[in-house]
């Protein structure tokens, strides 16, 4: 007789919570970028307020994972599934924090108008939102090819980030009055770039889940 029902239910719950975290993070990034484009302070505050929910799910994943290890003594792929749930939830939690950091930039820019219309930052954020979706999709489908593709997406994000920095540095050099705001926009670029790195980490964990070896996709 094979008794795994409760274990399988637990593994399913872990996956559902990770997907929920992924959706939350993607939404938080999208909304914080919209709040930035319009310098909508109220919206930014709402994003900051939502963040503890993400932390709560991360804690639930840690508790459930610990319980499954203690009660089910998982091995092989089951064990890897739980180990990556810890790591992916930690990445997603950081991605949530970085989205909140973007919202906090909006709060610091309260009362100002943008020194330039935002074009490349929203483009970068759109690319990264696709990466977040891909990371979760690769996790659900255990799709190693998609996980590897994210490494290439990440290179494009990095290239765009460098371009954004160059433009903002030029702007600051031309007009020193823009330095304060432009610095914050550099930070935003940095936050988005870090979110992409965390999404790539998720891809690495998917590869580890499927083949049992750890690639380095963040090089």
């Amino acid at each position, binding site marked *: 007789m*094979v*008794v*795994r029902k409760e*274990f399988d239910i637990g593994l399913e719950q872990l996956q559902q919570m990770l997907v929920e975290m992924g959706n939350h993070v993607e939404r938080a990034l999208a909304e914080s970028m919209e709040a930035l484009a319009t310098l909508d302070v109220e919206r930014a505050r709402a994003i900051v307020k939502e963040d503890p929910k993400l932390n709560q799910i991360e804690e639930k994943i840690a508790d459930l994972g610990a319980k499954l290890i203690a009660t089910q*003594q*998982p*091995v*092989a*792929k*089951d*064990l*890897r599934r739980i180990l990556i749930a810890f790591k992916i939830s930690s990445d997603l939690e950081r991605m949530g924090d970085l989205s909140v950091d973007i919202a906090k930039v909006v709060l610091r820019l309260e009362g100002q108008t943008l020194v330039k219309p935002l074009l490349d930052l929203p483009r970068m954020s759109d690319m990264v939102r696709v990466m977040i979706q891909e990371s979760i999709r690769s996790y659900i489908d255990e799709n190693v090819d998609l996980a590897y593709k994210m490494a290439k997406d990440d290179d494009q994000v990095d290239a765009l980030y460098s371009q954004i920095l160059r433009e903002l540095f030029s702007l600051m050099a031309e007009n020193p009055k823009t330095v304060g705001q432009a610095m914050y926009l550099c930070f935003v670029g940095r936050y988005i770039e870090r979110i992409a790195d965390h999404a790539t980490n998720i891809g690495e964990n998917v590869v580890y889940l499927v*083949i*049992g*070896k750890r690639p380095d996709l963040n090089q």
Partner: protein
Amino acid sequence: MSTVATRAAFYTKDLSVYYGEKQAVKKIGMEFPDREVVALIGPSGCGKSTFLRSLNRMNDLIPGARIEGEVWINDQNICDPRTDVVQLRQQIGMVWQRPNPFHKSIYENIAFGARYHGIKDKKALDAIVEQALRKTALWDEVKDRLNQSALALSGGQQQRLCIARSVAVRPSILLMDEPASALDPVSTAKIEELIAELKKEYTIVIVTHNMHQAARVSDRTAFFFLGDLVEYDDTRTIFTNPSRKSTDDYISGRFG
């Protein structure tokens, strides 16, 4: 399938075992590294115990059992009918699932084998008994009652006594068929600790149904299924990243 180890204490080549027409073990080639613990795992009826018993010709005692292939120990194929099985079983000890001490004193249980192999001197026998009991961490528990019946010991102590009885005749290999499955958790832990200690001197092959015991005590693990050796690798690899899906499914409790 066979895996080559660096320092083989012994190895099998195309080893098959039949019960009448039925082939219980199918052409197994395995190397057993010197002074390492190899765990044999697999569902009931997969051939692992039959394979274990064929390593010191215990299957000879089962009517209708027939061995084909080779088991090589010290340049000798023990499947050769000319093999002296008494001498063979001195060299390869066996520990069974249920402790089976003789209906004799603790002392006599240990001294029996040595006497059988020709040691008569009392002092020499005393030394062998003490050494065997020390090796199995029983000495302190029984040294004041060596002349009491072995049957008065607890199940866990009896099992350690049986292991002491095996090591008293100075084997180089110990075969264990689910040695802790009839014991409580504390006695089980003592047996596992003992296995870790004994592997400094002996090559050990253990059959176990307890997956986590295999993971804890062995250096290498072999997964048997329907008489075939499906996968044989480092224990760590088997329990973290086995190559075969059927191995993963079995150790994860998806079948068996």
